[in-house]
């Protein structure tokens, strides 16, 4: 009987995706394109936040959007109505976007013509957290009606993001959502996360979110 050998590997399970994501990140850096991966559960307000962001930043930055949905054009049509080009990825069942899918979207875009790309990931608090898309920064949205206990149920998503946008704060009076408790828990899980409280409907807090994004983009572009 042949001897069994033990081979030490210690390699990321998703190393293929990771390698492509790293390549994408480098290519975007070379082209001065800041890509943001925006994630959340369905209905939290990704499209709304993107639209509010576009309205405030489009005179300063050339913006493009990569839309990910299982099968729909609804979101990309809304973005196009703002005068911004959107590439719609229809995953046909995949519950998240990954580096190969982002690569196919980027292949259709002239990167020289963009400063900011926003990925609107598939509505899902679980899977997108595991797959690097090559973005420079990751942000997530949690809306007030979803509840403040989501950190306990979906800790990975909260731990991998650079920013958390608490949306629908105009609903705070109607719920027992505890903002302080949420922020406390999130910061213990993810020390460096930047937290914003907004309402896409009333506009409250959106400027602070855009200021952060603006600073990140300038910092990114000045690095070279």
């Amino acid at each position: 009987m042949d001897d069994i050998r033990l081979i030490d590997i210690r390699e990321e399970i998703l190393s293929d995706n990771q390698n492509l994501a790293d390549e994408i990140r480098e290519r975007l850096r070379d082209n001065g394109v800041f890509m943001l991966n925006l994630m959340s559960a369905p209905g939290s307000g990704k499209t709304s936040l993107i639209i509010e962001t576009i309205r405030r930043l489009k005179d300063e930055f050339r913006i493009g959007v990569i839309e990910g949905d299982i099968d729909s054009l609804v979101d990309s049509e809304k973005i196009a109505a703002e005068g911004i080009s959107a590439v719609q990825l229809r995953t046909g069942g995949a519950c998240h976007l990954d580096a190969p899918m982002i690569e196919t979207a980027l292949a259709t875009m002239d990167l020289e013509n963009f400063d900011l790309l926003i990925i609107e990931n598939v509505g899902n608090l679980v899977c997108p957290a595991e797959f690097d898309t090559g973005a420079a920064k990751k942000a997530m949205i949690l809306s007030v009606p979803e509840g403040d206990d989501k950190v306990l149920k979906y800790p990975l998503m909260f731990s991998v993001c650079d920013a958390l946008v608490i949306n629908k704060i105009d609903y705070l009076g109607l719920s027992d959502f505890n903002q302080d408790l949420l922020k406390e828990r999130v910061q213990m899980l993810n020390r460096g996360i930047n937290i914003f409280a907004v309402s896409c409907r009333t506009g409250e807090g959106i400027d602070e979110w855009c200021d952060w994004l603006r600073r990140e983009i300038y910092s990114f572009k000045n690095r070279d």
Partner: protein
Amino acid sequence: MHELAVTEGMLKVVLRHAELNRAKKVVGITLQIGEMSDIVDEWLRRYFDYLSRGTIAEGAEITIRRTPAVFLCEDCGEEYVVNIKAGDRFSCPECGTNKVEMVSGREFLVQDLKVI
């Protein structure tokens, strides 16, 4: 939920290293997966049984080592395990502070292979 994509990724890593090491057959795979990951072990094994057919990894036994979420207290230096989904408190059990940081629990590795 995304066990299929994960299993595909895992199989690529396994077969690449098996080939590099001139293995004839992979008989065992050890994964190290942190508590933060939502992978359901049973589904990973089922997808693996299906995807590995016809490859040298067919029939390999998969061992999944779950590593817990470990936090470090910045005040008193205590390191402690938190069962996040069970609703354990994040704050330091020793001195009660919230000045703590999660230091492990996000692992997602192919740790080793047993090959012939």
